């Protein structure tokens, strides 16, 4: 049995207010009627949201624009830059925490990326409970719950929260900044009941077990679905933008107006954008939108799965929710699963026919 501590609403407020004194606090806020992650300065700005934010929280670990080197163009020299500050992220859902774990693997893989890792090191993660909307399908990818990657996880119950501690740091925060008591059996039961009900609320799902998806995708390169969605895709990169596990970046130099200095910056890039795979001399390895979409979907379900031992889709549904032409990642995946299964059935039927008809 996991250990839960009861944190009253009043004590939660005390915790956040204490954190505000020592950290930059990023939480879910109300942005023109929608939940979004943003820096808060008072407890009242925090609006814990059960629905997913439009943008993921990745920007607080992997900013859209980040300085890697400071350049002195007159001297012709470079100086490394590392920007990090102690921060707390409040309001990440299970999918967001799973996504962060994947980003951690990407940036520690091979040559570690100090810019990301330094920021990650100084980040406290407080997760909160959520409810699915029409696009969420984390449940069928096994990401509805999360067991690691957070410092605290708060489940809303009557009168407050049940807090789960994911790290020593999380436990220490509770001790240092607020007071809790052991959760009662009734409260724990309430949480388990909630989970069962939550599971039933999902309307979107993937119609195959997650382990099958790399295989399904690896055999779907010539599916007609790519040309179909490629013909309506704007190539706008919104899906890359909102995805919590899209980490591709560009690196370029920006020169100051006096031409004496500048910065080597990395900025978010997206594999669905036209120039992403274009090389000097003009050849574009993925000039067609269909190929770029196929690449992106495969990155989520196939290409990276072996290297990082995980799917790179966490089922948050953000790409589908934001797509202007309603390309839906769970529906596309289900279509590929259906095609795959039909091919397998046909193959097995053909085999039987041959047995009958020697």
């Amino acid at each position, binding site marked *: 049995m996991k250990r839960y501590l009861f944190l009253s609403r009043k004590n939660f407020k005390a915790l956040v207010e204490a954190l*505000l*004194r*020592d*950290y*930059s606090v990023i939480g879910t806020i109300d942005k023109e009627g929608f939940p979004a992650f943003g820096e808060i*300065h008072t407890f009242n700005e925090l609006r814990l949201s059960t629905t997913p934010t439009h943008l993921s929280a990745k920007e607080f670990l992997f900013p859209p624009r980040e300085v*890697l*080197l400071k*350049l*002195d*163009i007159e001297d*012709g020299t*470079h*100086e*490394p830059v*590392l*920007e*990090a*500050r*102690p921060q707390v992220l409040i309001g990440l859902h299970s999918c967001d925490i799973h996504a962060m774990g994947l980003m951690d693997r*990407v*940036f520690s*893989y*091979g*040559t*570690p*990326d*100090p*810019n990301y890792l*330094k920021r990650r090191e100084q980040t406290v993660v407080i997760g909160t409970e959520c409810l699915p909307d029409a696009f969420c399908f984390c449940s069928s990818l096994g990401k509805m719950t999360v067991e690691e990657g957070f410092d605290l996880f708060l489940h809303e119950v009557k009168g407050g929260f049940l807090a789960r501690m994911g790290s020593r740091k999380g436990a220490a925060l509770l001790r240092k900044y607020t007071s809790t008591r052991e959760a009662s059996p009734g409260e724990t039961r309430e949480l388990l009941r909630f989970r069962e009900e939550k599971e039933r609320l999902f309307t979107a799902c993937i119609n195959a077990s997650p382990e099958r998806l790399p295989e399904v995708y690896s055999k779907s*390169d010539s599916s007609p679905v790519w040309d179909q969605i490629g013909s309506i895709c704007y190539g706008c990169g919104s899906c890359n933008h909102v995805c919590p596990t899209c*980490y*591709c*970046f560009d*690196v*370029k*130099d920006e*020169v100051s107006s006096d*031409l004496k200095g500048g910065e*080597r910056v*990395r900025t978010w*890039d997206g*594999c669905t954008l036209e120039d*992403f*795979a*274009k*090389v*000097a*001399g003009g*050849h574009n*390895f*993925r000039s067609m939108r269909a*190929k770029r979409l196929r*690449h992106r979907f*495969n*990155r989520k379900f*196939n*290409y*990276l799965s*072996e290297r990082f031992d995980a799917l790179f889709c966490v089922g948050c549904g953000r790409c589908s929710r934001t797509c202007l032409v309603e390309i839906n990642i769970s529906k596309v995946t289900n279509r590929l699963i259906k095609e795959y299964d039909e091919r397998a059935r046909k193959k097995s039927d053909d085999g039987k026919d041959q047995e009958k008809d020697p």
Partner: protein
Amino acid sequence: MTGKIRKKTPEGSPYLPVASTVEEVVPLTARERLFRLRLPLGGGGGGGVAAYGPGQFFMAGLPGYGEAPFSVASPWGGEGSLDLCIRAVGNLTNAIHRLEAGDTLWVRGPFGRGFAVEEMERSDVIFIAGGIGMVPLRSLVKTVLERRKSFGRLTLLYGSKTPEEILFKDEMPEWEKKGLDVRLTVDSPTPGWKGGVGVVTTLVPGAISDPPNTAVVITGPPVMYRFVIFAMKDIPVPAGRVYLSLERRMKCGLGKCGHCQINHLYACQEGPVFTLDELSGLTEAFS
């Protein structure tokens, strides 16, 4: 508490380049120049550069102009020299072309997996290059010729658009003297041209006499690969002994930025040199 941004120097940012000194600039063609660089030796965290091999690449750049990947054009000599052959096509490469002896070019690397020279030993080796693909091949050819006796027949098939665009033409008599059979072809001959005319694929069928005992190395522009592989379809060289160096956009060299991905492979990590075997069935390899 906000705005508390801590700035401190990380120990060894992988994005921090080291200074190399331009020792000599050799104009090769109207568009390509060879830059002879002197590298700080040392490797690892010591601010120097480790040994490189043929087929590997460096990120080279200038502050204000950014960085781009360039194949090594020289064999590793152990003394910290590096040749990069650079075609002026954009802002960065044009800025590099303005460098003179004594200037600094900033480099990071070496990156990637190069040619498996040991696997080619005791075999015939056919080098097939198109255009600027001759650059990574020069490093390999010179490496192989240094140990000429370890290899069987060595043949270079090299296709260029015009005779003027042939790279390293001045060095070829020496390569021939050391035992490399050089066969050149151009798309558009000029008066006095004595080599072949036509694309490089026309030279392929006649060049491979003992396919099971041959290693084939292919380097060229993206469009060339499909045609060369097609030209070899009836020649039984094992797919694991056909080596290709694939060009891709690259921004980091560290397996992070995502630009060089070919299906599940990263050109900067598992490549840029792959065997045909490794690329078999990969829809993004030759697109």
